[in-house]
């Protein structure tokens, strides 16, 4: 394959990996606090819709992007209420959130199908953007791509280099120990749920503001689930999440190109590729590590002490 084909493919890989990256980072934050949120898919699509509507009404993509984060937080708060206040089952609550989010976005979004909204365009970084090969791949992307990459070291530093991050990880590992050390465990779990919901919402916004500029039904197309799987693949580490997100982005972009070129492989098989890869990656990750590094108290509610 020559560079004429490869460079656009890699650039597209980064682009289609970015929404997954936001969502994966968000879910890492939530899971590190000990809460399993399987509602990523639902939160993403609500974020996408909120961003789309806001951009259409205000014409301000940055405001729309931020609002998607807030919308993600609001939906994730539902998960917090069920699991942190009422000690509901985290798996069931998360699944319900996905179904709710998809339904809500479908219902509210139907009149918008086919419409466009202002979004983010390409933003070439002066100097770097002019580099051969590397320039078009990495430095001629839109603003949100650069932002998402910036979140990776920030989240890593938050988790590993700050007192809040230390406390949040302790709450996800052993809430009783954290409570005994005087940490308000529920507050940190709320922070994990809401902060995670914010990032997942941003991932949704990328789809409607930068990836397509156009509303269609089922815009997320399973990317939320891929993010849930990627958290395990990434061993709950932000750096590995970046790698995983671009790997999946690459497969997604690759199958689109193959379809465009027109091969003899049926398109439904090509569409399956990212999900097949999800399964393979999960098998590989669990076989290799036996879920090492998973927060020990993941998915376990904090019962009030009597």
């Amino acid at each position, binding site marked *: 394959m020559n560079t004429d084909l490869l460079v656009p493919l890699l650039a597209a890989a980064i682009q289609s990996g970015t929404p997954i990256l936001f969502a994966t980072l968000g879910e890492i934050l939530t899971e590190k606090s000990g809460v399993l949120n399987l509602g990523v898919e639902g939160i993403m699509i609500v974020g996408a819709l909120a961003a789309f509507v806001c951009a259409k009404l205000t014409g301000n993509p940055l405001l729309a992007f931020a609002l998607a984060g807030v919308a993600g937080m609001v939906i994730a708060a539902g998960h917090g209420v069920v699991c942190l206040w009422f000690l509901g089952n985290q798996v069931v609550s998360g699944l319900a959130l996905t179904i709710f989010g998809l339904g809500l976005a479908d219902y509210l979004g139907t009149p918008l199908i086919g419409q466009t909204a202002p979004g983010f365009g390409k933003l070439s970084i002066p100097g770097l953007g002019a580099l051969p090969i590397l320039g078009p791949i990495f430095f001629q992307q839109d603003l949100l791509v650069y932002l998402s990459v910036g979140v990776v070291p920030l989240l890593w530093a938050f988790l590993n*280099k*700050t*007192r*809040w991050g*230390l*406390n949040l*990880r*302790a709450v996800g*590992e*052993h809430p*009783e*120990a*954290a*409570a*005994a*050390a*005087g*940490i308000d465990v529920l507050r940190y779990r709320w922070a994990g749920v809401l902060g995670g919901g914010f990032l997942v919402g941003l991932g949704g916004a990328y789809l409607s503001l930068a990836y397509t500029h156009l509303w269609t039904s089922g815009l997320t197309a399973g990317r939320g689930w891929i993010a849930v799987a990627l958290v395990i693949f990434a061993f709950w580490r932000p750096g590995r999440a970046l790698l995983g997100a671009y790997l999946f982005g690459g497969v997604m972009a690759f199958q689109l190109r193959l379809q465009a070129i027109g091969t003899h492989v049926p398109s439904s098989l090509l569409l399956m590729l990212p999900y097949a890869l999800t399964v393979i990656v999960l098998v590989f990750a669990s076989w290799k590590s036996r879920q090492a*590094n998973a927060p*020990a108290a993941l998915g376990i509610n904090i019962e009030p*002490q*009597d």
Partner: protein
Amino acid sequence: MTADTPLISLEGISKAFGAVRANQDISLAFRAGRIKSLLGENGAGKSTLMSILAGRLQPDQGHILVDGQHQVFRSTQDAIGAGIGMVYQHFMLVEAMTVTENIFLGYPGPLVIDPSRMENQVAELAAQVSLNIDPRARVADLSMGEKQRVEILKLLFRQNRILIFDEPTAVLTPQESEQLFEALRQLAAQGKAIVFISHKLDEVMALSDEIAVLHKGAVVADMDADQIHSKAELAQLMVGREVILQVERDHLEARQRVLNIAGLGDDALKDIDLELRQGEILGLVGVAGNGQKPLVETICGLKRPGRGTVRLMGQDWGSFFQRRRWDGNLAYIPEDRQGLATCRNLSLTDNLLLTTRRGFTVGPWLRHRQAEAKMEELAAQFNINPPNPSLAARQLSGGNLQKMVIAREFFRRPRLIVAEQPTQGLDIAATEEVWRLLLKARDRAGILLVTGDLAEALALSDRLAVMFDGRIVDTFAAEDSEKIGRIGLMMAGSSP
């Protein structure tokens, strides 16, 4: 504030949960430089009192004085602020984090942390109080004794003045316990007030400056340790009646071989040889987690033996568990009474039927009424209280549930009994009863008694085997006083 003002005193503390009065009018004082033991059986109100001191519970009546000043603890934060620190029985450490991270957990300071400076601080403190620990080690890689040191350092780092230890020796080898006592004495000498909660009389007698005894939620004694002259006196205070801590045991002729293990090994066990005959109790001692669990699981058919041979009643492991007879056979009394031994939501009758169906079936049908009558008979015979066969297992106290399990297993007239921590968590009265039942069963069975409680092993066993790191370090007769003196060392891995 005078020099004699207690660091903390409790005045008239009462706490009730519904109709249960867990603490009644408790007044106690904790002074700097003194080690005070709180002694009491399960359910005497020790843990409620400690939760009140740690700020996790609020008393219904009474108050807490810190340095002679009234104070109300609304949260654990308040108690920590007053200088009270607890070392819980189950360590409150995050296994996946380092020693340093654990010590700094919840400690106020700048938002961005500096690991190397933190590590130096921890190392410095550890050196000051001569508690040896690697600040960079992951807690998951530490031994129980080392984990406890981390807990202590955590308290010291917060400048706590009152250190409360909840049954701290339960998980330690005798050597580690000795080291802990040494550390506690040193801390007391440095002006800390130490509170030592236990139900082990020897330890309390050996360590304390003052002893307070709780019985049924009230303080029945609060005195200097030198006013106590014998263990029996203390036990009587604790239980509220005279107790015999010794059981009569006469020697029985060991007969037919019921268990024979040769060269058993797998990923957790190393070259185990073991023999057990009818008429004897073999006490298997060791710190928990040194291979007792896989060994028991192999003997009881839950785990396939790796290398070597396991023969039960003279039959090979495979054929024994393929054609298992319901009676005259193997009985397993697991450590986990409410998990492995019984189904907590099933009635006692249904729990009886779990392992004993013969005699209660007609074709595919269960004869439930007969089973219920049998259960009632067993309840009377084994003194199970309340003797109601339709109660769910979870409604029985630990001691009564254990008697129910023993009754069920003994009903099958076993020839090999594997009893795992049979008296863990039971009070003295229930312990006595369980001991008697086991000794009686020795008539017709060989008993493998797996226990972490050395006193129990010595009271019951005819022979002892010490386990460490998946090996049997040594096996010897219970009369061999020279080897018995070295059990502690063997439990820590030194060769016999």
